[in-house]
Every structure is written in C-alpha cells, then in structure tokens.
C-alpha cells in the first residue's frame, strides 16, 4: 500500500471535512427551502376569520409522486375553535384529493372554528406503506388568510383612525370596486392586495389628514354580489358571504321554481358563459361540478322545454309523472294504454321494456301483443307478451333517440271483431261491448253506464247489422206498458239519441249542484244557475224581484246540508230599512231553495191564502169580532191593531172579559182584558202586549145555556125570580146560585129550600134554611151543590102550618056544614 503524503493526507482530511460540512449545509439548505415553500403556501393567519363555511379551502397538498394514493386520511388535521393553539382542538378525518387544487373539506366543520392547523409532522394513516420522508413536512401554520387575498367587490374594510369621527366604521367596496373615503372621495381598490390598498388609502388620506400614524385598515368581511335570474322564486341581485356557492345563491333567491331545468344552469361572467349540470351536483354532491362564483356573476336558471310557451301554474309532481324528458329531439315518447304516458329522457341502451316500466307499466286494457315502436321514422311492432314468454332479446327492438312507442287498447282490437255490439249516443260510456251468452239489451245499456240526463230514452234505436232499424221505448217498458227490449245480435248498434234542442236551454242542463231554486212571490220563479260570489239580492234580481204581495220579512231559505234540508229565515224588509253588513246576508249555495211567501190579499178572501201564512207569524182572534180568523202579525203591531183588523168587537161582545192566551212562552199564561175600562180610562197599560202565535177570544154577552149538558148545569126551580138552568163551578156555593137566579121571590118558603143531590151511590134530598143561615151565618149549614143537582125553592103555601090551617079550615067547614044540615033536618 502506497503511503500518502502527510500534506496530501491533511488535504484529504480537510476536503473530507469540507465535503461533510457541505453536505450538511446542503441538507440544511434543502430543508430550509421546503420550509420556505410551505411557509409561502401556508401563510400565518394574521387575524381570525369572522366566519368559516363548510367549504373552507386549505392550500394545495399536492405532491409529485404519482404512485401515492389518491386519498389520504388526514388525521393530522386539527381544528381550533379559537386563535391560540392551546385552545380546544378537534381532530377530524378529512379527505384530501392530492391531484386537485384547491382542496376542500367535504365534512361539515363546526360553526365556531376559527383556525385550521395542519400538522404534517404527524404521519397520516395511510392505506399503504408510503415513504415517510414524503410527508415529513415542517409544521405548517395556518391556512389561507384574507389579508393576503386581493380585494374584491363586496369586501368590507374597517378603517380606524382614533380621534376622527368619520372613521371607525365599515367601508364596503361597492359594485364599481371603489371605496368612498371621508372627504377624500372615491378610491378604486378592487384587485389590489390589502397591503397595496393600505398604501393607496394612506396616500389618498394624507392629502386631508396629517397624522395617519395610527391609521389601521383591516378586512372585516368578504361578501359576494351576484345576480340570480330565471326560474327561481325571487330573481334579482343578492348578496352572499365571500365563500358563497351556486347552491347558496339559489337558496338566497328563494329556491328553484317548478319547471326549472337543472342540467343547464348558466353562470355568466362578463362575456363568458359557464354551463353546468346542477342536477348532477345534487346527485353526487361533488362540489367541483359547481363553478366558483365571483363578484357580479349572473346565475341563470333556464326553464324546462316541457313547461311550454304559455305561463300556467302546474303541478310539478304531475309533470314529473308525465316523464322527465327535457329535450324533445332526444326524448322517448310513450302513450296509449300505459299508466303514465309521457316523454322520458333517452339513455343509451334503453329498451322498450325500460320505457314502459318508466311509464308505470301497461294498463289492464292494453294490447301487449301489438305495441307500436317508431324508430327514426321506421315503424315496427313489438310483442311484449311473446318476449316475456320466450325471453328472446331479438324480439326486443332497439330504441333510438326520439323514438315513439304506442301501446294500443285491447278494445280497439275488439272493434274489428264480429262478436261485439256498439252502444252510441247519450250513454255514460259509449263504446263496443262484447256480446256473450245471454247478454241482452238492458245488460248492454248498463255496461255503457246507462243513459245520460240528456238522453231521449223513449226512442232508442237499434241499427241491425243487416241494415234494418228498430226502436225501443225504455220509460214505457219500465212502467210495464211498452214492448220488451229488442233482441240484440252480433254486429248491431244501439243508438241513444239526445233530447231535441229547443230555443231555450233545457233546465236539465243545469245540474242541481249548480242551481238555486227560487219559488214563491217573485216575478220569475225558477231555477237560477248559481255562483257563490252572488248574494240573495242577486238572486231576487234575477228572479225579477218580489211581487207586490210578497212577504219579504219572512223569506224562507231551505239550506241543503249533509243531505238534510234545514230552514232558515231572512228578514229582507228589516235589512232594507235598517241596512247592515253585506256579509250579514244569508249565504246561498247551489242546491238551496229560496221561498218568498205571499201575504194574504184580504181577510175576506178564501182561507186558502191564509193556509200559506206560517202559523208562527200569525195571530188568532176569535169570538165576537167582525171577522175572526188568523192574521199576519209583525212585532210592530199592537193589540188594538189586530182587533181593528178583525173589524172590532160586535154588539154582542163581552168586552169586559176578553181573554188573551199568550203562547210560545215558558209556562201557561192567560191575560184578561177589560176593554170597557180601557175606554173609560184610556190607560194603555190595560192593553196586553201580544205577539205572533197568541190567541185573542172575545166572549159573547148572551150565554147560551141550552147548549150545556144536563150534567153540567143546575136547575133552579120554584119560588125564585129567575128559575132556569145555570152553569156551575165548584168554587161557587148555593148562595151564588141563588143570587145568580135573582133570589127567592116574596112568596118563597126560604127556610125550606130543597137541594136534590145526584151522587154516585144514589140520590138524596137536603134542606137549606136560608132564613136561618142569614141569621146565624153558620156555613156548616150550607148544603153541597154540584153540577147536575136540583135546587127547589118552595112556596110559602107549602109550609106545615099553612097546610095545617088550610086542612083545619076545610075540616071545620065540613063539620059545621054537616052539623047544620043535621040540625035543620031535625
């Protein structure tokens, strides 16, 4: 081995040392460069954000190694809820897509996040083993800062200058990109960095203000002025936060309206126009589909071509069910016997079956053997039934853009057959019907839903297949008078004609559910087609108004409610005289019946007119008046009015004992009116208050006793001034009866008044000594007297003493005469 020169060896040692030192320096320099690079891309936040949205962006984490996985679970991302790093840290898992920039958190951030710290020194949980040095980054500080961004239209600056009142407030960057500075005027700052803007503002203000040392300018908030037009609920200019997106812009414009086309929303920026698929964004949630908004952008939401050229309100769900085809040229149209005919968007590889399924499947009446498919103007026939049975895909025609599919109706095929009968004209469901077995005329008519209200059923015609004609009278048949229904044969046609047209439209054509029936005392009673916006006054006008004798104070309205008619009353007379709210008029609806009663012409008229007068608006007067009867009565009339209307009391009327029975009140109440005393005194309080329903009776002065039954009267006979039959009441006594009969005559034997009682177990006679009673007043000596009894007042000649003296006188005379004759004979 060759021995080295000591100087050379020293050189080598020095060189080696220098090499090691250089390597170390280079290594140190390289790390410094990385740190510098990250320091530029992750600048420190000089002040906390006032608000951080869910889509807050962090700087690029892009790397150059294509072998790295596309996704890194970034467990090293810490979120701080306030500025200092010592505050609460929330560690979350966020996806980083290294190939895209800028990156966004797709996981919602808490609202109180004030800063984001990315600690790249912590190795990520990587799906595969990765070279660790690739992630050994310096501890990066905080992501993006407003202070480093360019100023934009909509930003709000806070300019403070202690001691100056004009400052210390917010200064927005207006739509022209300029600030309006106090006394200094406008200054365009949009597009400048904040530092540049500070310098410009300071320079502008220095012309006005001397001491600007304590001038402080910071960005307070970022806003976004954009305009949203098209199919949104409230199109117009809106203001968003600085990180607003298309979705927040649409939401701020009230949201989309029905009929908006989602896949062609545009963002106009000056002359540039960006079209994006908002529907795809809603389907996938991929925020990168949405273009980033910038100040003064215009978001335009177009209308779907399915909305047509006429602006109408439509139901979005119905429209959606009718298909989702947005473009007529490429969409596939399907109609006929499917559940949801419509236009559907074309998709590559779609088959007829796919489209039928999207149309809700075929209906029960469909003819699935003969589905018509039109591809590029070339018709073809598809047998769905055969396809489902065989599974042969060759049967399945390929669909092309703009294809048309028609599923025919099964009945259409029947029409061509010879086993059907046609029912036409005024039936509910005209069409062809299969004739099977014992199907008859009535069966066919029933299958067709029966005749409509316009049908002329008394002349139904049957057109025979051999060309002959027959007719049938259905009403006569149902009444058992007409001929039986004709026999129906294959190929026949039944024609139900409509009623013959007249000059005036048939009243049948106004359904009861649309008409009000106006009856009674109006000039043109009848059915009136009704609309709820009209009132009862409109109805009366339409009916020509009430006639002269109409009782408009008692209009009757028969209300139709829940299949029950309920009467209500309306006093039009009161409404017309006193007025009132129009809303107080009774509500009339179709189906109601309105009756205007007729007032009687005169009480002397036939009673027929009175029968129509409602009893609860009448008053009754009977007895000794000129014209007794039932009279129309209102609350404005009095007792004397109704007495005068009945031509007043007759000469036989007992006006001291007029009775008024007050009905319709709680309890029974009869008042007695002494009209004679009223005429003597003129005191109105003697007159009773009468109202509708009351009964007035004026009795007769001359009692007709003979009409009373013998059991109800008492006979008073004998020596009495007015013997006869008398009415009896059990609250009377014999004294009342004698007084009523005028008292005993002068020759009456008043100490021997006889009373014959007819009691249940026989008859008996009792004595009443009026004379003795008059002397003693002993009421126990009053005999009982009841209806049917007899009271006899004897004559004084019937006393014992009188009889005795008479007999004695007669005897003495006889004896004297006999003795005298005997003496003379001797």
């Amino acid at each position, binding site marked *: 081995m060759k021995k080295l020169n000591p100087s050379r060896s020293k050189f080598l040692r020095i060189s080696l040392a220098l090499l090691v030192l250089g390597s170390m320096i280079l290594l140190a320099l390289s790390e410094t460069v990385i740190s510098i690079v990250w320091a530029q891309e992750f600048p420190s936040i000089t002040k906390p954000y006032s608000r951080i949205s869910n889509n807050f962006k962090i700087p690029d984490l892009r790397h150059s190694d294509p072998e790295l996985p596309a996704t890194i679970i970034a467990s090293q991302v810490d979120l701080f809820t306030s500025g200092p790093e010592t505050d609460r840290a929330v560690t979350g898992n966020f996806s980083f897509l290294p190939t895209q920039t800028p990156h966004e958190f797709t996981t919602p951030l808490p609202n109180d996040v004030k800063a984001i710290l990315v600690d790249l020194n912590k190795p990520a949980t990587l799906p595969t083993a990765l070279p660790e040095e690739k992630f050994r980054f310096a501890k990066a500080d905080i992501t993006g800062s407003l202070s480093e961004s360019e100023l934009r239209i909509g930003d709000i600056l806070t300019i403070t200058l202690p001691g100056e009142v004009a400052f210390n407030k917010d200064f927005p960057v207006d739509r022209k990109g300029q600030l309006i500075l106090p006394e200094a005027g406008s200054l365009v700052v949009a597009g400048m960095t904040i530092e540049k803007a500070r310098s410009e503002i300071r320079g502008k203000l220095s012309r006005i203000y001397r001491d600007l040392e304590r001038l402080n300018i910071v960005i307070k908030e970022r806003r976004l002025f954009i305009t949203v037009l098209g199919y949104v609920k409230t199109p117009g200019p809106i203001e968003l936060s600085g990180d607003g997106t298309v979705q927040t812009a649409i939401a701020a414009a009230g949201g989309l309206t029905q009929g908006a086309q989602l896949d062609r929303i545009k963002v106009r920026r000056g002359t540039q126009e960006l079209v994006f698929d908002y529907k795809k964004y809603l389907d996938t949630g991929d925020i990168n589909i949405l273009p980033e908004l910038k100040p003064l952008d215009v978001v335009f939401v177009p209308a779907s071509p399915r909305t047509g050229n006429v602006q109408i309100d439509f139901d979005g769900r119905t429209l959606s069910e009718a298909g989702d085809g947005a473009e007529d040229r490429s969409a596939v149209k399907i109609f006929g016997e499917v559940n949801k005919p419509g236009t559907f968007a074309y998709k590559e590889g779609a088959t007829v079956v796919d489209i039928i399924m999207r149309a809700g499947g075929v209906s029960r009446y469909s003819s699935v053997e003969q589905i018509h498919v039109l591809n590029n103007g070339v018709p073809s026939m598809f047998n769905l039934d055969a396809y489902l049975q065989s599974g042969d895909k060759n049967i399945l025609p390929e669909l092309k853009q703009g294809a048309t599919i028609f599923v025919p109706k099964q009945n259409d095929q029947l029409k061509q057959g010879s086993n059907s009968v046609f029912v036409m004209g005024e039936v509910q469901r005209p069409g062809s019907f299969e004739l099977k077995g014992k199907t008859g005329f009535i069966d066919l008519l029933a299958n067709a839903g029966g005749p409509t209200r316009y049908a002329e059923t008394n002349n139904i015609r049957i057109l025979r297949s051999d060309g002959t004609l027959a007719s049938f009278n259905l009403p006569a048949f149902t009444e058992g008078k007409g001929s039986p229904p004709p026999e129906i044969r294959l190929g026949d046609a039944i024609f139900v004609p409509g009623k013959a047209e007249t000059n005036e439209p048939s009243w049948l054509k106004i359904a009861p559910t649309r008409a009000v029936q106006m009856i009674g005392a109006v000039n043109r009673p009848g059915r009136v087609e009704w609309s709820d916006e009209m009132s009862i006054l409109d109805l009366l006008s339409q009916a020509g108004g009430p006639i002269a004798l109409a009782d408009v104070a008692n209009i009757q309205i028969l209300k139709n409610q829940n299949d029950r008619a309920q009467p209500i009353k309306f006093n039009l007379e009161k409404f017309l005289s006193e007025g009132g709210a129009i809303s107080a008029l009774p509500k009339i609806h179709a189906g109601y019946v309105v009756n205007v009663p007729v007032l009687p012409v005169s009480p002397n008229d036939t009673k027929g007119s009175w029968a129509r007068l409602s009893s609860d608006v009448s008053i009754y007067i009977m007895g000794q008046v000129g014209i007794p009867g039932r009279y129309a009565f209102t609350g404005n009339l009095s007792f004397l009015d109704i007495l005068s209307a009945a031509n007043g009391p007759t000469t036989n009327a007992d006006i001291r004992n007029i009775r008024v029975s007050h009905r319709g009140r*709680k*309890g*029974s*109440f*009869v008042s007695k009116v002494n009209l004679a005393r009223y005429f003597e005194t003129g005191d109105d309080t003697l007159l009773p208050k009468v109202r509708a329903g009351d009964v007035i009776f004026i009795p007769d002065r001359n009692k007709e006793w003979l009409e009373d039954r013998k059991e109800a009267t008492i006979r008073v006979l004998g020596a009495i001034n007015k013997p006869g039959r008398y009415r009896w009441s*059990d*609250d009377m*006594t*014999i004294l009342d009866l004698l007084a009523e009969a005028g008292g005993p005559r002068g020759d009456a034997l008043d100490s*021997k008044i*006889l*009373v014959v*009682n007819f*009691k*249940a*177990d026989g008859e*008996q*006679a*009792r*004595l*009443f*000594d009026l004379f003795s009673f008059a002397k003693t007043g002993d*009421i*126990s*000596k*009053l*005999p*009982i*007297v*009841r209806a049917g009894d007899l009271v006899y007042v004897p004559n004084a000649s019937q006393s*014992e*003493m009188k*009889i*005795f003296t008479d*007999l*004695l006188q*007669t*005897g*003495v005379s*006889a*004896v004297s005469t*006999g*003795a005298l004759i*005997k*003496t003379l004979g001797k």
Partner: protein
Amino acid sequence: MRICIRKLITPIIFSALCTMNAACTPWPIEGTGGFAERRSSVSPELSDLANRLKYAIEQGARTSYAAQTAEAELQLTRAQRTWDAGFIEDYTKNYQILEVLVRDIESHGTSTQGPRKRIN
C-alpha cells in the same frame, strides 16, 4: 042542643087529628159541605194532599203548570165538600184524581215528561 054539640065533638076531633097528621109530612134533614173548603175538618190523607199541593204552589206551580194547578185546586175543593157532605164514593174518586194531579205537578220538577192525562 047539648046532645048535638056532643055529637059534633067526635068528628071535629077526628078531623083535626087527620089534618095535623097530613100537615106533619117530614122534611129532609139539612145539608152540609157546601162551603167545606173554609173548614179544616177534612180527612187526614186529604190534609196531606192539600199540604203537598200548597207546597207545590209555593214553589211556583201556579206559574209553571197553571192549568194543572187550577184543576188540582178545584179537585181539592170537590174532595173537601164531598167528604164533608158524606158522599164517600164521590170523595174517593175525587181524592184519586187529586192525588194523580198532585203527583204530576211534583214530578215536573224532576221529569221532562208532559202532563198526564186527566182521570175521570
């Protein structure tokens, strides 16, 4: 002459006795009960009914059930008079009618049934 007078005395006395017998035909006894409602001597059960009716009238029966109350008062008078006059069968009938009427008036306070039919 003495003989003649003696002969006349016998027929004269006979005639006078016959005349007195004819003149003394008996009159019926005096009647009672004609104003018995003014007296309190009625049967105990009728007194009870009268008190019930009086209570019902104090409760307003004369206003609320005027016709029935008037009928009951009339029946009470009839019953009192027939009792006092000794018409037992008539009294019994009147008493039963009165009892029904009073019960009807009393039951109106607790029942919604209409007045019962009159019993004759």
